[in-house]
């Protein structure tokens, strides 16, 4: 073990204030020959809403599990709330909440029974348990559903219950692994409102998601691809990154009546690198040298635009694949 200059006594209370909530340095996790998380370093500050993005199998869930102390690190080290993930995982589990991508409460028990069970395993007793439960039930509006069997609730209400169960012990850090998968838009927005309320109370949130609009809501976003951290920053920073819109290129939005044929036409042009349909328009990455003058007609409108987060991640992932292919 390397000696750190800081006196890292395991009994010392976690430093409050400036110390980051999550501090991961070169974290690597292997399953046999597969490297699921490859030298990932990141820090998350108190009260942040931190988005963890990436395709399925990119290592998001694995990273979260490792930060909870459930997986051994092949190399690197990580501290969560000031505790070492390898040596002090018990302490970490007392201080974090976890809400999984799959609904993972007991479908055959009632809402109240699920809440009571989690109160119990987090060690909340009588009066304290009642007070905290009432507080969270009021926040989520679960009151009318307390006697219902959990399996019969809709997706949105199930996720609210899962959130209640994850917050009972007043965690300072909550991991939400795809909390809104399969939840309707209204319930999604309401859930996010609650998450921001929590962040306002100083609770740190780490959220994985596939929805770009949710990624936009995050304070900072990390993009994982094949276990590697390819991008990290605020959504605005990421969109402005030079490799997303390289010098000599610009992003445009094109509105046209026959978008399918226009898309095919654009993709054949050597001066167009990316072209994708977004609803009623096409987003394209076009060389500055090409003014697309031959396309402009009376019903074709071309506006300059900036990259959105999806453009960012697609571009970065493709660049990485190209590098990979070139490297052999």
């Amino acid at each position, binding site marked *: 073990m390397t000696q750190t200059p800081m006196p890292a006594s395991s009994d010392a209370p976690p430093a409050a204030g400036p110390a980051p909530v999550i501090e991961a340095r070169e974290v690597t996790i292997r399953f046999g020959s597969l490297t699921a998380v490859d030298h990932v370093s990141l820090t998350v500050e108190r009260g942040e809403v931190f988005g963890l993005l990436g395709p399925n199998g990119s290592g998001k869930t694995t990273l979260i599990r490792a930060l909870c102390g459930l997986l051994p690190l092949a190399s690197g080290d990580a501290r969560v709330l000031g505790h070492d993930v390898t040596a002090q995982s018990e302490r970490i589990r007392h201080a974090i909440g*976890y809400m*999984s991508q799959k609904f993972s409460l007991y479908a055959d028990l009632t809402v109240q029974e699920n809440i009571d069970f989690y109160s119990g395993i987090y060690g909340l007793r009588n009066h304290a348990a009642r007070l905290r439960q009432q507080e969270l039930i009021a926040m989520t509006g679960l009151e009318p559903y307390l006697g219902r069997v959990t399996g019969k609730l809709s997706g949105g209400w199930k996720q609210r219950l899962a959130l209640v169960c994850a917050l009972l012990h007043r965690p300072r850090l909550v991991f939400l692994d795809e909390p809104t998968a399969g939840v309707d838009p209204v319930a999604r927005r309401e859930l996010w409102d609650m998450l921001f309320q929590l962040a306002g109370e100083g609770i740190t949130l780490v959220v994985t998601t596939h929805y770009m609009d949710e990624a936009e809501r995050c304070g900072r976003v990390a993009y994982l691809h094949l276990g590697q951290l390819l991008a990290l920053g605020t959504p605005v920073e990421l969109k402005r990154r030079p490799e997303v819109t390289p010098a000599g290129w610009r992003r445009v939005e094109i509105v046209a009546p026959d978008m399918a044929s226009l898309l095919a036409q654009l993709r054949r042009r050597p001066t167009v690198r990316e072209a994708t349909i977004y609803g009623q328009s096409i987003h394209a990455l076009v060389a500055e040298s090409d003014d697309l003058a031959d396309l402009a007609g009376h019903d074709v409108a071309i506006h300059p635009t900036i990259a959105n987060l999806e453009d960012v991640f697609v571009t970065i992932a493709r660049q990485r694949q190209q590098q990979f292919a070139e490297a052999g």
Partner: protein
Amino acid sequence: MTSDVLFRTYAVARKELWHILRDPQTLFFTLFVPVVELFMLGYAIDTNVRNMRTVIVDQCGTQQSRELIAMFENSQDFRVVARAWTDRQASELIVAGKARVGIVIPEDFTRRLESGRTAQILVLVDGTQSSVAAEAVNVSNAIALRQSLARVLAGGNMPVEARPRVLFNPDTRSANFFLPGLMVVMCQMMSTLLSAYAIVREKEQGTLEQLYMTPVQRGELIVGKMSPYIVLTTLEFCLIALLMWSVFRVPVHGNFFTLLALTQPFFLANLGAGLWISTRAATREAAGQMAMGTILPSVFLSGYVFPIDSMPWILQPVAYCLHTTWMIDASRSVILRGAGWPELWLHASVLTGMAIAALVLGSLSVQRRL
């Protein structure tokens, strides 16, 4: 800190009890199947051979031959269902399944008897049911021997007479033999299955992953989950014992609480096996099959049905490695022979040792890390 452990364990146990109560169907079948089994074995199965269907071929037709036939009938082992005139007819009846035994008294039976030569009778036995065949051979030999002795001694006293006295089960009732074993096997099945299901269900539903993220410890999870099932299995054991005593009139000669105390390490050993299964099975179906796999050797090798003494020598040590063997023997000892702690300390220590071993192995295999 200790109170935290107890509090979390209690929370897990309480939740497990909710699961049990929320699913009355499973609860009903768990409790009900052993009772059905009890009634089937108690009423239907009688391994004692009586009233074997018999065909008589009396080619002699004398007073002596009729006396001999009467002796067969009076033994209550044979019931004459047909009379025939030739050996051939008798074997046809046996082949057709109408009779199990044929008794053929040849024409010269009386003549040979009176001239002092050995008179022979032919006993045809259907060997397809081995217990029936063995009984028919034994009883007819005994009758022939008795007849011979009576003639040799010509009215004198029998020089030697065996007076069998069957201890502990004077009527040699099958129920007395089977039911104390049945209680054990049924409760083994129940506790192994329930404990395996308890963990596999959480795996299947993905709730175990959530639990790993909480402060709950491996030991708390195991003890909390298992304790409701120990209580449930103990209650079931008492229910079967009550029915056995009240409906089937199997007398309990020993102290029932001694037996109940002995069941506890036995149940713990089953829970250990259940835990072990739950770490290897991904679904409840797989867990059910694996549990059946562990229960079958217990049924066949534990002396529940087949006496261990008549097993091949190579299987006998295997039988003594099964906890079921020790528990069934303890159950029969207490219920039928009235045994107490002086006779049962070995059973108690073996069962306790096996319980500790099973629980340690089971708990080790439940990995704290996913």
